[in-house]
Structure formats: structure tokens, C-alpha cells
């Protein structure tokens, strides 16, 4: 994996090593934070880190407490449509405060206020990570906190010909399809980037729609260890 070329935007705040001397079993947890800009209006974003408690009320707690995210709405995809979860502008509670927003899940965020930056805090997912991408439309993000090309860096190596990734430009979805005939990813106009072999570039903290057309679900596998 070309990790040296990746833009690893996670600011590693701490590297915690815990050990159990008796059994000589070690675990290394890497925790940090990622700043994700949240523009006015709709954006398609994601939580890049495992906060343990990945509920909407937790991962946006600071932004709500500070007022920046009061009145916002998070929209999650059901497979056929988006379901809203609104932060109440009067009492600042979420309609569904336990809605889980784990790494790997993309979601729409409607920001009715001024642009702000949300700081996601948590652990970097490591090891053999996996996710099922169903047939039809689904919304995802990188399983690991990296900006990278979908196929080569982020590990989605088994996209089927005809599968399409849609990126959000603030008003519409911009498609990037894997060609049915030559199996290359189609180019994207600036400011997006899509390599014919590596696929579209997915910025850290960004979600994307995926349209699976292969006739069945596919597995997204990514082995990742912080060196």
C-alpha cells in the first residue's frame, strides 16, 4: 500500500500502549482527531474515527454545545431514501440522539448556520477491516482515516464494471463510473480527481454514494496498521 504517498490528515494526539505483562499480550490503540469542514447547506461527510460512542449526539456534541450545529440535520440513507435526524433549535436535542455514525458510514449534514469545523475525536480503526456494499445505492466513507484513491489506497479493489461512485458537489451528485468495457474509472472534472486505475479520490471525512451493479453485494476489505 502506498501509504507514503497518502495524505494522512489525522493528528495523532496520543499513542497508547497497554500491556498485560502476565500474558505478554499487547494492544496498541492510536487515538487522535480529524477536523472536517462543514459548509453551509448540505454536505456529504463522515466520521473518520471510532469514538467508542459514535452517536450523533456525541460526535457533534462540541459543535452543538458551541452553537455551531444547533438546528442542523443529519440524513442517513435507508437504501431507498434519506431519513432526517434534526437537532432541535429550541432545546438543542437530537430527534434520535442515539443514531450511530461509525467510521465507514457516509451521511448528509445540513448546516443552517455559518460554516464550521467539526472535530472528530477517537481511535484509528486498525486490523482487518471490512464492510459489505450492497447491490443498488448505498452511502459510505473510508474505513480508515485517510485521504486516498478508492481502489488502491482505501482498498475497494473489487468494484464491478458499471459500479458508480457519486461525489457530492454541494448541490448535486457527480458520478464516476467504472467502465463496462475497459474497466477503467471515468475521469472527473476539477476540483475532483479520479485516476483511471486507482478510482476516485475520497478526501478524509467525506462520504460518497455507491451504486453497485454487479448483481450482488461486494465485500470491501482493508487491512490497516498505523506504522
Amino acid at each position: 500500500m502506498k501509504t507514503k504517498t497518502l495524505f494522512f490528515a489525522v493528528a495523532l494526539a496520543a499513542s497508547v500502549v497497554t500491556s498485560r505483562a502476565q500474558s505478554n499480550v499487547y494492544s496498541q490503540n492510536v487515538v487522535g482527531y480529524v477536523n472536517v469542514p462543514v459548509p453551509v447547506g448540505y454536505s456529504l461527510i463522515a466520521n473518520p474515527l471510532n469514538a467508542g460512542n459514535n452517536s450523533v449526539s456525541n460526535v457533534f456534541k462540541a459543535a452543538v454545545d458551541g452553537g455551531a450545529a444547533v438546528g442542523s440535520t443529519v440524513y442517513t440513507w435507508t437504501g431507498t431514501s434519506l431519513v432526517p435526524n434534526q437537532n432541535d433549535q429550541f432545546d438543542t436535542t437530537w430527534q434520535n440522539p442515539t443514531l450511530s455514525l461509525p467510521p465507514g458510514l457516509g451521511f448528509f449534514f445540513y448546516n443552517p448556520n455559518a460554516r464550521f469545523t467539526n472535530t472528530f475525536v477517537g481511535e484509528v480503526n486498525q486490523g482487518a477491516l471490512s464492510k459489505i456494499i450492497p447491490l443498488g445505492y448505498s452511502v459510505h466513507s473510508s474505513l480508515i482515516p485517510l485521504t486516498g484513491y478508492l481502489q488502491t489506497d482505501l482498498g475497494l479493489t473489487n468494484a464491478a464494471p458499471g459500479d458508480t461512485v457519486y461525489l457530492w458537489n454541494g448541490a448535486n451528485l457527480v458520478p464516476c463510473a467504472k467502465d463496462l468495457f475497459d474497466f477503467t474509472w471515468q475521469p472527473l472534472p476539477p476540483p475532483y480527481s479520479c485516476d483511471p486505475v486507482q478510482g476516485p479520490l475520497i478526501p478524509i471525512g467525506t462520504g460518497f454514494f455507491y451504486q453497485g451493479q454487479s448483481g450482488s453485494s461486494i465485500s470491501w476489505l482493508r487491512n490497516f496498521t498505523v506504522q
Partner: protein
Amino acid sequence: MKKLFVVAALSLTGLSAFGQGVLNFGTTFTGSFVMPIFNYDPANPFQPQFGIPSTARVTGVIPNIGTVNYGGALLQGTGFTLQLWAGSSAATLQPLYTTTFRTATADKLPAGLISGVTSLVIPGVDAGQQAWYQLRAWNNEDGTVTSWNQVLNVFADHGSSAIVQSGPLGGIDFTGGVHVPNPNSTDWVSFSLIHIPEPTSVALVGLGVAMLIIRQGKRSH
């Protein structure tokens, strides 16, 4: 395949019978729309009021360009019901969502509003197409009046918005195109209930009028 494009703006008239379009329903969309509903005006109980409330009447209404000074109080609590009716045309509306109102410590927001936003599938309307909808509200008489039909039969206080058209619905359309985000239900404006007198009161008044007519008739003979 390289010439794929997003069908977000497709309008597929004629395919509505297979539709699964979705509308976000609510009375509050922070920053763009806060539209409360009022009880009848005690000074003019049989006359419904319509229009965006004046912010002098209710602080926090959006858009803040309203001029209507509602005489009735903001609807509050579980004693009032709000129902969304929607369909593919103004003639095919059906009830899709029922709820009650929020409360406040006084006659101010968030009274007059409902909690949260709910995504609703509008039957018979494909994603990308527009739906028709209407809000209907009534005094549910301590929970005993549970449907619009019942409202009309028992003469409960009630009111409704104009029938309005939504933006293109969200979801996946008949051709497989995805439409996001869902449109918000921001096409209507505030309204008030009208008061319907108790049937017994109406009967007494009628009886009184009848008596007066009879008495008048006797005098003239």
C-alpha cells in the same frame, strides 16, 4: 458509460403509479422555515386566518416577512392533532402522518410547531416528481376525535392549509436514478382553526330562533 449523468433533475411524468418519492415533513427547518399553527380567533371564531405570521405576533417565525396578526393562541400539546395529507394530485390526497403539537411555557414558539422532521413516502409519486399536500389540524377533544372524517361529523374546531405542491421528491426513481436530498415541506403558510359551536348550543340557538319566528307570526295575526 462514460457519459453517465445524474438524473437528479429528471421529471418522469406518467410513471407516478410506480413511485416511491420521499418528502421531509415538518414545521421547522432551521434557518429557512419556522411556521406555526394557531387556534381560532376568539374575537372572530368562525373566520379562518391564513398567511405568514407577523414577527411582532410570534418571535422566531421564518421567513420574517409576515404581516398576519393571528388572534388565536398557538396550538399546544396533545389536545390538538396535526395531520399531513398528500398524493399525486390535489384530488387524491390521503392521510400519511399524524402527530400532536409541542408545548411552551407561554404563547410562544415552539408551541404551534411539531417535533422533528419525518421522511414520508408519498404513494403514487415517483422520486423526482412533485407531490401535492395539505396540513389539517383540529381540536381532538381529549383524544376522542382521531380522524378528519370524525372532525367533520362531530363539528370539532379545525383548520387546514391550502393544498400546495412540493419540490421534486427524493429517493430512487422508476429508472433507477437517485434524487437527493428530499425536499422539505416548506411550501405552505400558517393558518388558524375555526371554532365550531357545540351541537347542543346550535340546537338551542335554533330553537330560540324558531320560537321568535312563531311568536312573531302569532303577533302579526
